[in-house]
């Protein structure tokens, strides 16, 4: 309880005593900060599992022929890897961890609007995860459809699809409830004086994300229900031999799953928009433009799903529309990049680890984004669709984008969350190793894709050997990087030096409460008068 010599005499959220003790003080806590940490620990655990699967796939691909596993295992691996990474990690990722932890604090509230619902979301998340994982050990063995569950293979495979699909359904529910909670929180619980345009950008991004979660997720929910019905009752929704249309399945799947990629990236962009002004000690450039672009991405992103289906045999009119909309949805991203860079102009930059992550985020995001444009153009998509070029694109933008932003945010808010400082030297070394490994791992995949190597290939012809060696080698560097980063963070969380209330000189509300914050964040709800990045 001696945590906060600075101000509050209240115990921090890590220390207070509730009704339960031990682990129950966490898993039954409705405190938004504890729930945020619950998510952090669960996500990290799943990440290690998913990452190891990725690594094993790379080891298999290091040379043609069988190295360490058979094709059945490989197919199961990329399916589970995809499901874990998408549904268990990057979709909940920033919103569930940092959103839960910081949204209420940043808007000057004591908690989210529905704390118990919030806890329910976490339980649903864990339950869904568990159901997904049972698919690995029961029934006909690990599902092998890829994370897209394309019909009609997903009805025919003898593997254990039902738990995987049911699990994904439950996870969708959890995601919807989180989004709902955030939207209501933002509508109702902003501190007095905090008008919509005095709200920091991270909450803004969560607001837009919340809406996508609300209106996109149910579509995949019902699609997954249809798969379940199809497998159990043989209805024929998507089964061509009963008149169903497999392409319609793809439409429904991507109506959700494209917006889902913006669920992944918007909060990441929000976090970057927090980090940059703090370390630049400068107002963010084009605050309203960034808000507008956030909303625009969320909105237009809802109508471009067809770019995943360019070679599926859709009509030319559909291809035309989807391609052009895909290009237009890139514009708001461009606007954000330009505004971030302009924020650094005439700034006074305090070069710390989070800033490294932010800058490298912009770099990999640009590469990922432009490769997205290559895929969005019809002539090139036909060649590159379902090749390793796509794999490179989405690792760059999902892992590179969301992942870098997550780790940046992790370092940025670390002192606030744990009340301790991380070891800056190791953090920088970790970042550099990670960055180098990342480029070595995924860079060659662009080349492989251009050369024509299809994705989800367990084995390949000799011409692709060179690229795969480099890439597999990169994965080893990347692990080293990640291991350094994680070890450093874990160690510092336990025994790092005590951090003070505002180590970076940030001016959003979370820096006005003690580190770590007390149970109810604020002794007194603040009255907001200035803009969120008003450094003058």
């Amino acid at each position, binding site marked *: 309880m001696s945590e906060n010599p600075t101000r509050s005499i209240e115990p921090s959220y890590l220390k207070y005593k509730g009704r339960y003790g031990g682990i129950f003080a966490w898993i039954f806590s409705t405190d938004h900060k504890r729930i945020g940490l619950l998510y952090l620990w669960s996500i990290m655990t799943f990440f290690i599992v998913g990452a190891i699967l990725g690594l094993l796939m790379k080891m298999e691909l290091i040379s043609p022929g069988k190295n360490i596993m058979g094709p059945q295992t490989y197919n199961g691996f990329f399916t589970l890897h995809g499901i874990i990474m998408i549904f268990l990690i990057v979709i909940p990722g920033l919103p569930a961890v940092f959103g839960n932890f910081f949204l209420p604090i940043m808007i000057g509230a004591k908690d989210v609007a529905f704390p118990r619902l919030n806890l329910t979301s976490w339980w649903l998340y864990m339950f869904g995860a568990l159901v997904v994982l049972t698919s690995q050990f029961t029934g006909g063995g690990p599902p092998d459809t890829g994370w897209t569950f394309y019909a009609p293979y997903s009805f025919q495979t003898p593997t254990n699809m039902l738990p995987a699909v049911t699990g994904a359904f439950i996870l969708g529910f959890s995601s919807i409830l989180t989004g709902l909670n955030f939207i209501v929180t933002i509508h*109702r619980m902003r501190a007095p004086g905090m008008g919509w345009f005095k709200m920091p950008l991270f909450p803004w991004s969560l607001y837009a994300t919340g809406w996508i979660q609300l209106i996109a997720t*149910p579509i995949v929910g019902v699609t997954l229900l249809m798969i379940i019905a199809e497998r159990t009752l043989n209805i024929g929704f998507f089964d061509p031999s009963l008149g169903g249309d497999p392409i319609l399945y793809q*439409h429904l799947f991507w109506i959700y799953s494209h917006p889902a990629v913006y669920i992944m990236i918007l909060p990441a962009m929000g976090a970057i928009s927090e980090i940059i002004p703090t370390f630049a000690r400068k107002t963010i450039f084009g605050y309203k433009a960034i808000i507008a672009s956030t909303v625009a991405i969320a909105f237009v992103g809802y109508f471009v799903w067809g770019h995943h289906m360019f070679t599926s045999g859709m009509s030319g009119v559909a291809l035309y529309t989807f391609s052009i909309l895909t290009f237009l949805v890139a514009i708001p991203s461009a606007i954000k990049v330009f505004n971030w860079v302009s924020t650094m102009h005439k700034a006074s930059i305090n070069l710390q680890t989070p800033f490294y992550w932010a800058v490298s985020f912009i770099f990999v995001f640009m590469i990922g984004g432009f490769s997205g444009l290559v895929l969005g153009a019809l002539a090139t998509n036909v060649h590159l669709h379902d090749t390793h070029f796509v794999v490179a694109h989405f690792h760059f933008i999902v892992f590179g984008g969301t992942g870098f932003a997550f780790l940046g945010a992790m370092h940025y808010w670390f002192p606030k969350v744990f009340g301790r400082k991380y070891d800056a030297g190791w953090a920088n070394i970790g970042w550099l190793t990670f960055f180098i490994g990342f480029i070595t791992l995924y860079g060659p995949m662009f080349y492989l894709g251009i050369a024509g190597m299809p994705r989800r290939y367990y084995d390949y012809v000799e011409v692709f050997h060179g690229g795969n060696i480099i890439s597999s080698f990169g994965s080893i560097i990347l692990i080293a990087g990640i291991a350094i980063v994680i070890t450093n963070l874990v160690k510092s969380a336990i025994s790092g030096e005590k951090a003070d209330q505002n180590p970076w000189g940030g001016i959003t509300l979370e820096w006005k409460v003690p580190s770590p914050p007390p149970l109810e964040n604020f002794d007194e709800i603040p009255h907001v008068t200035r803009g969120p990045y008003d450094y003058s």
Partner: protein
Amino acid sequence: MEQTSGNPHIHRDDEASKIGMWLFIFTEMLLFGGLFIVYSIYRYLHPVAFELAADELDVLVGTANTVILLVSSMTIAMSVTAMQKGNKKLTLALLGATLFLALAFLVNKYFEWGSKISYGLYPGSERLHEFGHGDTLFFGLYYFMTGLHALHIIIGVVIISAVMYRVHKEMVHPTKYALLENTGLYWHLVDLIWIFLFPLFYLVT
């Protein structure tokens, strides 16, 4: 309860729960929205079969159920008014009426499904497969969509019963009736969906 949350003064915000309820309703709308996409695409692909298959459904039962739901929607809306006016008895009576109508709807549905099934029309049945693709899809959708809708009715029945209990115990009372209002919203949603299901399955023959 509040103590566990570690959050002693969660203050009450009825407006917040109402927004929350609306947002939830939106997700439900989209859930069915996805099914409406499937329906409209398959109807477009198999127009004739869909029209013929729709003939198999009993318009009378459908209309009866529509009226039942509409009336129940009104009774629950009125119960909010009754509550606002502080008339507990009337509130309970109206909720009871809603509950009764909901059950009537389900009973109706039960017999409707039952007769279809005994006639050999159910997902995966031989008879359906003989009919051809359009019919298979039509009845697949019919069972799936009305089934999902019936599930919502069943959930509604549970919720309404719970609300009645709370009204009875005066945990819901004229200055604190957000729960009743939100239940009403949910029930109207169930009605809304049926308003579209009814013509699409029973009428456009």
